[in-house]
């Protein structure tokens, strides 16, 4: 095995590790965005509840549930070995 091939072979685990780190950061960013959306939904639900606009309350819960399901799906990619 030549010097170049040897370097490539040795660097493969490191590359894999870098890719893993990038995917963890990507998932973290997506979950943060989803969490931000959920906070917006919760604020809208509270505003609707206290303001007497019950029509807005249920759709915000549905949207929050979708965001939570997506976050759970994303965390599955990170936690799966």
């Amino acid at each position: 095995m030549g010097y170049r091939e040897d370097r490539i072979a040795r660097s493969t685990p490191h590359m894999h590790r870098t890719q893993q780190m990038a995917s963890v950061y990507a998932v973290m960013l997506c979950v943060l965005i989803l969490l931000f959306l959920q906070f917006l939904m919760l604020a809208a639900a509270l505003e609707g509840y206290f303001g007497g606009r019950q029509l807005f309350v249920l759709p915000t819960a549905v949207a929050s549930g979708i965001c939570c399901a997506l976050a759970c799906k994303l965390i599955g990619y990170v936690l799966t070995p």
Partner: protein
Amino acid sequence: MPDSPAWKEDFPIAWTDDHFVTRREFTKSLVLVSCATLAANAAVSTLGVLQEPGQQAFPETQVANASTLAIGGSRAFYYPGPRDACLLVRVESERFVAYSQSCTHLGCPVHFQAETRKLYCPCHEGFFSVEDGRVLAGPPPRPLTRILIEKRGEDLWATGKIG
């Protein structure tokens, strides 16, 4: 021969310095916060569905005596619950109106201004019509909640609310 063994090139980071677990744990905790937010949102939704206006039956409560309230005068009372402050106004000799005293903007108590015949919220300069509770000026997004008033003899009874 090099000083460090070859395997150290493949694993250059010591286990104690490895922060992968920390990042994953952080992301996992974010998802837990997401679940908690969903639970809070579901709780608010459940409360909202349970308290829909159409499903509530309002009690009939005597709130004042007509003879004790001058024309252009106002009186505070609580309806339907002991913490639901409302305002009764005698607009004309035989016309009484009542509204929830909670401003639809941020819940500050509104007051009746006899000289301008308007309901006034001092917090953010909101004005409501005393005739029907609609917003005349300021940031309130909706009209005031109206309390239904019935005159039975000289007694004034609150029988329900609209809005």
